[in-house]
């Protein structure tokens, strides 16, 4: 069969498939009826056969390019992954996130160790030389501590809580997601973020203690601190899980290990998003206000406890084979 005859004979079918693909691509498969889908799959199979024929008989032609493209588009529609559904989302949060966290406990532990190392160094740095605080703290915070006032009072009275909470949770989520992505830098960026945040905590603690503000500081962070720090540590653990895949791929190739570990680690990073939104809101709406101390402490402990209980003890345990 010459190319001309082949095109003349089958072109209506290809163009019909192309039109149908246009429809399903814009409308989605849900809003097409059964006969439409049946026709689509029949046309798809016929066109793959045409492609196979063209591959044998019409090498290096434009027609072949077109058919490859057409079959790829149809393949894309027919082997489409499951669309987003609430049952899928609920399974994701109920089972998959805790399972991923439990699979990477070692990475989370390392993340906590690096964070605490940063805190210890922050404490001892200020102990050694008070000026070390100026490395990491902005001047307005320093001035406020030196004059024995909490800096939080000033900030939160000027800017209303909704704005502050948005600022807090967007910047904290950015830090957490960066800690996850930092795994791709063999963990260097992840370590830097964990260390920096730990260091800042250590510096603030020591400095406040020196200026008699320890009580006010503890009261301020009681409500959100535990949850916020936990989330950063878990996302750091996600980063280390990725870094570990790159550094110790084991019996897999590096790229296979990366794909496999990344897939479960990203679930831990996702878990941090709602946690940090919650922490940011508490930090802006509750922490700087005159709520009773016992309430802030109870809230902080509850939220932190729930976060860890959720990650470590809920959800079904992993089946033998992880579903793709």
């Amino acid at each position, binding site marked *: 069969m*010459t*190319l*001309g005859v082949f*095109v003349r004979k089958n*072109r209506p079918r*290809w*163009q019909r498939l*192309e039109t149908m693909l246009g429809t399903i*691509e814009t409308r989605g498969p849900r809003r097409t009826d059964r006969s439409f889908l049946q026709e689509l799959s029949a046309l798809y*199979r016929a066109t*793959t056969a045409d*492609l*196979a024929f063209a*591959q044998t*008989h*019409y*090498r*290096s*032609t*434009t*027609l072949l390019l*077109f058919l*490859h*493209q*057409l*079959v*790829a*588009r149809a*393949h*894309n529609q027919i*082997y*489409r*992954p*499951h669309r*987003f559904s609430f049952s899928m989302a609920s399974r994701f949060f109920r089972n998959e996130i805790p399972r991923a966290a439990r699979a990477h406990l070692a990475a989370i532990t390392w993340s906590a160790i690096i964070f605490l190392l940063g805190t210890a160094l922050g404490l001892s740095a200020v102990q050694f030389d008070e000026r070390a605080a100026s490395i990491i703290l902005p001047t307005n915070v320093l001035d406020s501590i030196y004059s024995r006032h909490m800096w939080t009072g000033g900030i939160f009275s000027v*800017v*209303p809580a*909704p*704005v502050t909470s*948005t*600022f807090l949770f*967007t910047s904290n*989520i*950015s830090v957490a*997601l*960066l800690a*996850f*992505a*930092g795994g*791709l*830098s063999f963990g260097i*960026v992840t370590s830097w973020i964990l260390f920096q945040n730990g260091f800042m905590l250590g510096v603030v603690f020591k400095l406040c203690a020196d200026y008699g503000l320890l009580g006010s500081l503890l009261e301020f962070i009681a409500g959100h601190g535990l949850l916020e720090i936990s989330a950063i540590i878990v996302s750091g653990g996600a980063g280390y899980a990725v870094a570990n895949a790159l550094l110790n791929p084991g019996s897999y190739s590096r*790229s296979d290990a*990366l*794909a496999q570990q*990344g*897939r479960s680690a*990203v679930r831990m*990073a*996702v878990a941090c998003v709602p946690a940090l939104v919650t922490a940011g809101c508490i930090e802006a709406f509750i922490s700087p206000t005159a709520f009773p101390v016992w309430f802030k402490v109870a809230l902080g402990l509850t939220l932190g406890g729930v976060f860890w209980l959720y990650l470590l003890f809920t959800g079904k345990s992993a089946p033998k084979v992880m579903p793709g």
Partner: protein
Amino acid sequence: MNALSSAWETRKTELELPEEIDLQLEVANVGSRTLAILIDLALCGMVLFVVYSFTLLLARDTAGDLLTRFSGHVMTTLLLLLVFGFQWGYFNLFEWLWNGQTPGKRLLHLRVIKADGTPVSWIDVLLRNLSRPIDTFGPMGLIGLLMIFINSKAQRLGDLMARTLVIHETEIDWSIFDEIKSPETSGHGVVSHAPSIHLTSAQWELLHRYLNRRDRLQPDVRQRLARSLRENLKPLVKGTDLELTVLSPEDWLVELARRT
């Protein structure tokens, strides 16, 4: 050197379909991928600029009435959310909802697919886009560029982690296969039931492509192409009456198309 030069050539994927077909798709090159990113960033930048300008106007007026102050705060919150959303949400949301495309990618006919040829799911999209601070944005972009150059399927780190690749979609134009509307050739004294001439598939395609596109060409280009095509196809008509006719190059090509 080898890797560098091959980055500018067309790279093909070989995907095996369940239908036992080797699907070949063109992997998007560095240039178009960079351009697509720049388009997306420009789009985000423009939106941010507009919102930022309004926020500045409103926030400047701190002594203003309650409504101005209130709307200033609303705009500030919106700006914070927008910056965050563009940084982490833009690529994720578009690639998820538009099946592997962002506005920039759509403009340049690029699409993200799984390395096995199937469409991307939301977790793939998340994996490849959360990694952008490490291999796309700012100076880190150099890492991504290097990866796209070196990797045989032009995958950056995020693509490797998500097992995705970016392909360039060929635009399908069936009109190059249209039947040729031949004018009445009997006037030229050509026998209408002439023996048919054998062209290879590629030659046939070339001939039809020219004839179907010629109306959209500049007159001088149209003539030049017709002449060069005739020169190339002339050896095929040896021994037939077409070898000696006095037809213009274009009519000659039409007549040739009629006999294949």
